[in-house]
């Protein structure tokens, strides 16, 4: 074994900021996830809808010019509704193993002996899911907004595009936070990733099915899937800000609940 001091003298002496820790945890998890083939495929798959909708937009423009009729169909809402599916799958794939794996491998103590609090840990794992989900919802959406602006300069003003991007960013924030909470929370609740996946799938399906069973088809959304669908409708179709705010609150609750479950779980296990 070689000499130690060379190149290793003078490390950190003050506790790092919470953001530094949270970012380090998220960055590592995203890096590891991107090495898995199915995650890469999902990532690439999620880039397909914006390309398809971009082509649709061009075809629509050409058709309108050819027949001289305004078809009056805006692909943005449909795009976001389609885009939600790969983002949801990616969130489940990324989020459900995160805490379960650390618990199964008994490494939570490794975080405890470093300047990492349970909140840093939980928010780092959340960011590892919410960050890519947010990017996959917003960046292709931005592409569509740019295409609209470029292809339909007479119909779409810059202010329209800016408002559209703002709405998409708002939707992306709430959807990505909810998906992170609903996939990382189950991961903290059980010790095996496959059980976490089942639990997360149940969260996305059971609450809305139950309330529909009780209150009928127009029941208020209480699950993350229906709430995200309703939020998108409220933002891009009905322009119902009140309904949208309530859906955003439901989505935010999933994030808060997922974070709390993770914090409570790791607080009891981050010890010798």
């Amino acid at each position: 074994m070689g000499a130690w001091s060379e190149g290793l003298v003078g490390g950190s002496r003050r506790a790092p900021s919470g953001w530094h820790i949270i970012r380090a945890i998220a960055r590592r998890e995203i890096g590891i996830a991107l090495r898995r083939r199915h995650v890469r495929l999902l990532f690439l798959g999620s880039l397909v809808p914006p390309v398809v909708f971009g082509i649709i937009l061009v075809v629509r423009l050409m058709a309108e010019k050819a027949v001289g009729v305004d078809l009056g169909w805006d692909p943005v809402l449909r795009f976001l509704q389609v885009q939600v599916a790969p983002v949801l799958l990616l969130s489940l794939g990324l989020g459900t193993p995160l805490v379960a794996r650390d618990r199964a491998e008994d490494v939570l103590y490794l975080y405890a002996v470093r300047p990492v609090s349970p909140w840093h840990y939980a928010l780092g794992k959340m960011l590892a899911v919410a960050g890519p989900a947010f990017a996959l919802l917003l960046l292709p959406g931005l592409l569509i907004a740019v295409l609209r602006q470029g292809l339909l300069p007479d119909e779409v003003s810059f202010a329209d595009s800016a408002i559209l991007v703002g709405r998409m960013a708002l939707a992306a924030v709430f959807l990505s936070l909810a998906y992170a909470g609903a996939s990382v929370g189950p991961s903290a609740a059980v010790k095996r990733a496959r059980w976490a996946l089942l639990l997360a799938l149940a969260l996305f399906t059971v609450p809305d099915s139950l309330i529909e069973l009780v209150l009928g088809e127009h029941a208020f959304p209480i699950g993350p899937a229906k709430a995200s669908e309703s939020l998108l409708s409220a933002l891009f179709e009905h322009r119902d800000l009140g309904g949208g705010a309530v859906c955003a609150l439901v989505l935010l609750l999933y994030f808060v609940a997922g974070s709390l479950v993770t914090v409570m779980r790791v607080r009891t296990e981050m010890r010798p």
Partner: protein
Amino acid sequence: MSEPWIEVRDLWLERGGRPVLQGVNAALTGRAVGLVGANGAGKSTLIGALLGVLRAKSGSIRVLDLEIPGGAMHLRTRAGVMAEQAGIFPGGSGVDAVVFAGMLSGLPRRESLRRAHRALDALDMGEERYRPASGYSTGMKQRTKLAMSLVHDPEILILDEPTVGLDPIGRTQFLRLIRELRDQGRHILLSTHVLQDAETVCDEMLLIEGGVVAFSGPVRGLLGAEETLLVAVGAGLDREFAEGLALLGFGEASASGERLTFRPRPDGDLLPFWRLASERGAEVRHLSRDMPTLEDAVVAVMEGGSRGRMERGSRGR
């Protein structure tokens, strides 16, 4: 005498309603301190309390210039911990785990990567560092864990059973490295069951038994606690000779074949022994001190502690 770098006063800590540390007091000044005790004695709990991971019921802890738990986050930045029960951050290679450990201790990614390679180079982790850590041998895991604890150049190194599972060569290399780290000026707390490791590395011992400090002080002091035995070898050193020695004030004399073991008199005078040998016509070919090992000394202290507790328990009943 130098300032203590760990100071614990009347520390009480319960886990699951059971008292684990019961009034621990210690002021550790040694550069390398061996934390020794039986399974369940409270060693890991004490380490957890020192790092502020476990909250004490009462008492105070100061490590370096930091009061714990208030300064726990700063302490954890300045300390490197190699935990026995926890492995390596899962899901990546050895170098990934070391880089991540550095980042969690506050290093920027680029700096952490540079240091991770330096640390792994120094630990002779060649190309293996790029392999998934889940497939590592015990030796490689231990080296990676040590690199994880050292990447940020900590002032304190807390090592929990660092040589477990290592082959003799690996163990020797590891201990040499720990000594090197100690000689560079780092404070080391070595929790171990292997007393030989503690003897090789440490200049001070903290012996925990049943949640209380059974011994705290220099290793020399612990060795001195066990009285030296004398061993004589020769003809005529039989049971009658041993009885004669006992009458002359020598303690615990016992004979076996040509070998006689006895404790010296309180005044250390050996002349009565030689006189008796001369009177009885015994032929003493060899007389030497039977120096106790650290293991003997620790076992003696721990047995003394157990006896004391049992006696206290029976008196209580």
